[in-house]
């Protein structure tokens, strides 16, 4: 565990609770998927929870977040209410996007959460633009952009790295390197599989951390955000992580062995933090139970909310194709 953080009990318990919320939420989603209440693609985050929780802990409300299609974890960690998120996945009007986005397209204007992008690499140029707007309109705000290592082979990554560097944009690039892009192993896809080393070619500051350790992620993210916020331009944070489950719900996982998955499971970020907190007397068994109960209650309430939700009337189908105004929650921007 890295120092430098103020690791009081409440904070550690908060990280643990954050990860557990994601883990439990997604486990429930699998059940809902099997019951055919959730349809479409469902990309789970099991194993990667430490990344979202660690990075979000380093961000402020004025910061912006851009995510991928594997974004339930980021959305929950960013504060998108669980009930709105679940209603979205059930396609209900009460969902965070009126049910129009579904699992892969979560947006939340109030929390500056800009998706939810199912185009691999598609969020990166967008994030550069948000950072550009912030640099002019909201000095001190940082845009954090999440993407997998698969996105790094897309041109959008390289164009964004270059733009962010020459314009010194307040952009935190968070690469969730979980070793596979669907079935493509990073070592075969990348001429330089050590993602953070690509930053040098763009003169972007970079670091690589153990993504299975939320405390290390948070510590590194705080350092990176500080650099970015103080005007030193973009930062690439590579989080080495692993997804325990399939890429999506349709995946025989022929590209990796059970042994490999089992080995990584031993580094489960929840279990690791749990053990560490127990060994260091940061938490009691009762407190663990209390957190688990709290999460279950939240989940049950979210499910009740989502199931009681309504479907958008078909007459509304063409609403928001063209907008008649710029919505309130979207920053209107003051004159720079």
């Amino acid at each position, binding site marked *: 565990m890295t120092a430098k953080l103020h690791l009081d009990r409440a904070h550690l318990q908060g990280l643990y609770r954050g990860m557990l919320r994601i883990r439990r939420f997604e486990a429930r989603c699998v059940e809902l998927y099997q019951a055919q209440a959730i349809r479409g693609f469902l990309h789970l985050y099991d194993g990667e929870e430490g990344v979202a929780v660690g990075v979000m802990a380093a961000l402020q409300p004025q910061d912006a977040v851009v995510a991928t299609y594997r974004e339930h974890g980021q959305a929950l960690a960013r504060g998108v209410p669980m009930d709105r998120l679940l209603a979205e996945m059930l396609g209900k009007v009460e969902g965070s996007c009126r049910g129009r986005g579904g699992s892969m397209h979560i947006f939340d204007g109030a929390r500056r959460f*800009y998706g939810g992008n199912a*185009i691999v690499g*598609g969020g990166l140029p967008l994030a550069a633009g948000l*950072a550009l707007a912030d640099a002019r309109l909201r000095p001190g705000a940082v845009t954090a952009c999440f993407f997998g290592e698969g996105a790094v082979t897309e041109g959008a990554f390289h164009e964004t790295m270059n733009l962010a560097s020459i314009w010194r944009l307040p952009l935190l690039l968070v690469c969730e390197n979980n070793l596979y892009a669907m079935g493509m192993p990073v070592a075969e896809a990348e001429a330089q599989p050590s993602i953070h080393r690509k930053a040098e070619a763009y003169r972007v500051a970079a670091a690589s951390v153990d993504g299975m350790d939320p405390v290390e992620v948070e510590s590194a993210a705080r350092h990176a955000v500080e650099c970015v916020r103080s005007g030193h331009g973009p930062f690439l944070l590579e989080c080495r992580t692993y997804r325990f489950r399939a890429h999506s719900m349709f995946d025989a996982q022929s590209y990796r062995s059970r042994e490999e998955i089992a080995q990584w499971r031993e580094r489960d970020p929840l279990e690791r933090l749990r053990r560490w907190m127990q060994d260091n007397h940061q938490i009691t068994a009762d407190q663990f139970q209390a957190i688990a109960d709290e999460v279950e209650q939240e989940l049950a309430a979210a499910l009740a909310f989502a199931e009681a939700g309504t479907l958008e009337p078909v007459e509304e189908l063409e609403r928001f194709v063209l907008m008649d105004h710029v919505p309130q929650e*979207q920053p209107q921007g003051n004159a720079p």
Partner: protein
Amino acid sequence: MSAAGRISYREACRQAIRQALLDDPRAFLMGEDVARYGGCYAVSKGLLAEFGPARIVDTPLAENGFVGAGIGAALGGLRPIVEVMTCNFSLLALDQIMNNAATIPHMSGGQFAVPLVIRMATGAGRQLAAQHSHSLEGWYAHIPGLKVLAPATVEDARFMLPAAMADPNPVLLFEHIELYAAEDEIRAGLERVDIEQARVRRAGRDLTLATYGGSLPRCLAAAEALAAEGIEAEVVDLRVLRPLDHRTVAASVARTRRCVIVDEGWRSGSLSAELAARLAEDCFYELDAPVRRVCGREVPMPYPAHLEQAALPGADRILAAARGLFARS
């Protein structure tokens, strides 16, 4: 701000950008070579000196990157005008335009708008061959979530941009390369134009020529030639390609009972196909003759002048199509 008088289409585009930057401090122009170079069609010449590098932003060659950055900047509260050198290169940015700009407002359930303007040059006529000469506005007009404009007159070049800047949606402006040098009078006192409606540019009772952009001058010339033969053609400038104002065309056809659609884009699956279908749906019983189309020939644009001209919907082809509609009566 609106100095009346005779100016070029290029100058009109420049004045429009200048006004947008003066009117809104959140507005900025961004694109390849828009600043130091002055724009590859010299539209933004002089603006860097007046507004500085924060408002007139040169980008490296990265169409997907900087168009995407424009979309993000619009989401973040700025009012970007993004210039793409020609629509041919916009294909590298198609992902951002289509998958982000056009979809985020709807996917987000109306939480976000993308108030962004993308300007690009379109069309042929300069012997630039197949990778610099295509007319792709019809493709973009296919995409829900975008507004697509084609200024064909100096007045529209001057006043469509302010209307586009005031619009909360991503608006694509297609400027035909052959029009930049055109000159015309701007009516005194004109402040803005709408970006909803097609416009009748020449009244006539015998035939409707429906067109837009670089083909408008050709159609007006054809109408003059037809008038000499006793055929009075009404020329409708579509102006707004999405949402397409087919009603103005239908109203014209209801008067003239004949229609030729002239479009520099390819014919198959094109904007002209869409308009023809709508006329068939709306005006079938008012037509005295089948709707005809004069489109770009279905080839990648060739380099030699004679082949390039043959590929374009030239006056001769327009005249032949128009006369053909009267052959049986």
